[in-house]
């Protein structure tokens, strides 16, 4: 299919699926088509292999030609004066930005319902309205319904993987620090990671390869010297696959458990070996995450006052009984954002600092140690082994972990809209550990013949050691091939 036909198809789908509310703003259609038409037919590979491809960008990533709202009322009219590094990289690789996708405000949420621009909708074959997952729900739905060929999302505690699982697409969170965060609106900076959503792992790799570079403008971007030590030159096959038993929780949906077993058996049939592992800190990961992320958020969101940029509340702000800018922030931020800012302010207050915030950072270290204890590869951020023999412990440990992405398939949208705030946090139990340790993780849809009717498939997650991004994608690709 020619690039122009492909682009026209995406644009037609954008009109067809308007009601799903996947986009907050769309690029001008005529200019998209004229740009795609200008791509010479020969340039669809090599360094320009994203040439003419329509890629959607989550609306918390800055673009100079379209508004960047982060799904918030406080940024509802904001357009950034510059492009984020990742957007520049996409454009340099020839991609055309299709539009900006809807999300939970500032990335805070698991169902993409906390948006100033209304909830994202995900529908199944029977036409029922389901949760799109969050917070990159708009990006996931845009990919699933063919409104773009791939999309960028951000993943702080599962925000790329969870929506991918709920909508039946591939969602990848790379190792922390591989992809630049410059121009990405910060939620919890020590966890925020730009990720990619696509229909296939092959497509995902093309986008990731365009983004996987050091950026001097991002102080958390990994240096070239560190990058050279990442990953393994050759991975011996068959692989040793880990089954983390701590991911077998009592509220795991039977269909999800069945699909998990099916996926593991399929890998075994391919010759890989299965090994049970224990990651005991998993049980504390969720609590630690909901201390760290809101604490960082309360600090990152302190700058929004509507003075230098952003929207202001009408009339005078700050009265003798309220703090200056409280009115603007009260009107501009949604409920969930205000809840997390408040919780974060508590964890950072003098009385709670040690018992909550520092304790959570210590739990974060325990989560990292748990993972380091089960992987065959040593953590390259902690050990500088130069040779293969030193870097990898032969005969012990597993190469990757395979587990579900979420405890249940996509829940009904009506149910999650009225969910208790704390109940909603449970959804992230399987995605948060990899975020805390900064590990690469991909969610791929796995379909079983017997449950084919459920359509989108069930999201299975592959987690690898830091820097083993390529291996994680390889295993994801193998899993997807199974039906």
């Amino acid at each position, binding site marked *: 299919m020619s690039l122009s036909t492909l682009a026209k198809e995406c644009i037609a789908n954008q009109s067809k699926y308007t009601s799903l509310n996947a986009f907050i703003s769309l690029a001008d259609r005529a200019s998209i088509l004229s740009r795609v038409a200008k791509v010479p037919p020969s340039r669809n590979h090599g360094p320009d292999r994203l040439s003419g491809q329509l890629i959607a960008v989550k609306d918390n990533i800055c673009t100079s030609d379209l508004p960047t709202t982060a799904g918030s009322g406080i940024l509802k009219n*904001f357009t950034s004066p510059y492009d984020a590094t990742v957007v520049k990289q996409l454009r340099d690789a020839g991609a055309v930005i299709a539009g900006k996708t809807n999300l939970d405000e500032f990335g805070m949420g698991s169902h993409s319902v906390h948006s100033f621009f209304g909830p994202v909708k995900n529908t199944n074959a029977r036409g029922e309205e389901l949760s799109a997952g969050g917070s990159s729900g708009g990006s996931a739905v845009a990919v699933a319904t063919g409104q773009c060929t791939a999309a960028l999302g951000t993943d702080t505690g599962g925000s790329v993987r969870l929506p991918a699982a709920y909508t039946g697409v591939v969602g990848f969170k790379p190792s922390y620090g591989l992809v630049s965060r410059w121009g990405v609106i910060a939620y919890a900076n020590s966890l925020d990671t730009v990720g990619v959503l696509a229909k296939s792992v092959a497509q995902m790799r093309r986008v990731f390869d365009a983004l996987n570079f050091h950026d001097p403008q991002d102080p958390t971007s990994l240096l070239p010297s560190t990058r050279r030590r990442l990953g393994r030159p050759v991975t011996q096959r068959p692989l040793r696959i*880990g089954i983390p038993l701590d991911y077998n929780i009592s509220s795991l949906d039977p269909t999800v458990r069945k699909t998990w077993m099916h996926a593991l058996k399929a890998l075994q049939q391919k010759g890989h070996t299965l090994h049970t*592992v224990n990651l005991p800190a998993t049980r*504390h990961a969720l609590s630690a995450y909901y201390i760290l992320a809101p604490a960082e958020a309360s600090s990152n969101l302190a700058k929004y006052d509507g003075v230098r940029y952003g929207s*202001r509340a009408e009339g005078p702000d*700050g009265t*003798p009984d309220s703090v200056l800018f409280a009115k603007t922030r*009260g009107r501009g931020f949604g409920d969930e954002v205000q809840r997390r800012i408040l919780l974060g302010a508590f964890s950072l207050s003098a009385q709670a600092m040690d018992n909550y915030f520092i304790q959570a950072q210590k739990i974060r270290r325990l989560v990292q140690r748990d993972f380091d204890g089960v992987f065959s590869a040593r953590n390259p951020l902690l050990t500088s082994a130069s040779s293969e023999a030193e870097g990898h412990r032969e005969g012990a440990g597993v190469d990757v972990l395979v587990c579900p992405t979420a405890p249940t398939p996509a829940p009904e949208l009506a149910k999650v809209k009225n969910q208790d705030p704390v109940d909603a946090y449970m959804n992230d*139990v399987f995605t948060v550990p990899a975020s805390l340790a900064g590990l690469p993780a991909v969610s791929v849809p796995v379909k079983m013949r017997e449950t084919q009717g459920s359509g989108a498939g069930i999201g299975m997650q592959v987690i690898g050691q830091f820097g083993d991004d390529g291996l994680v994608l390889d295993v994801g690709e193998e899993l997807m091939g199974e039906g």
Partner: protein
Amino acid sequence: MSAIRQKMLRVRNPADLDQLLAKPTWSVESLLPSKSAASESPKISTQQLHHLLRLSALPAPENAEAEQKMLDTLSAQLHFVGEIQQVDTSGVTPLRAIRDETAAAEVEQTITLDTLKDALAKEQVVGKHYKRIQRKIDHVDAKDVEDWDVLGSAERKAGRFFVVESEMPQE
């Protein structure tokens, strides 16, 4: 600091897998406060809530009902996250950020005289009795910064100024 290697069990028979995963290991709901024993949850006083709202530059609740809802939510959140206080973390170094913690990376990122060589070369000592350092002025291309329209994104402005209206009493 090194990770503890644990025993791993190889699953050889696919039928064993069914048995292995038949029994869940824990319940994530155990993190939630039980509906009956609400008194277990940490208590936040009204005064504390208002202090936190001020710290966050957020408005005070509009009425008593909204205030109670905020207190309940915060209390449930604190129960949920407070679980980690039971964990023994003595001797554990906090993980503050994901970064290269190896000795080699530390050396590479250490700022030394060599790192500052170029900047120091731009300094010269002037004066005879009162010696002081002066920077050699050469052309610096700062066009991208100088061309920045500082007021460009501001919603309310007056001439060259940002405008903030407040009713705070004049001191």
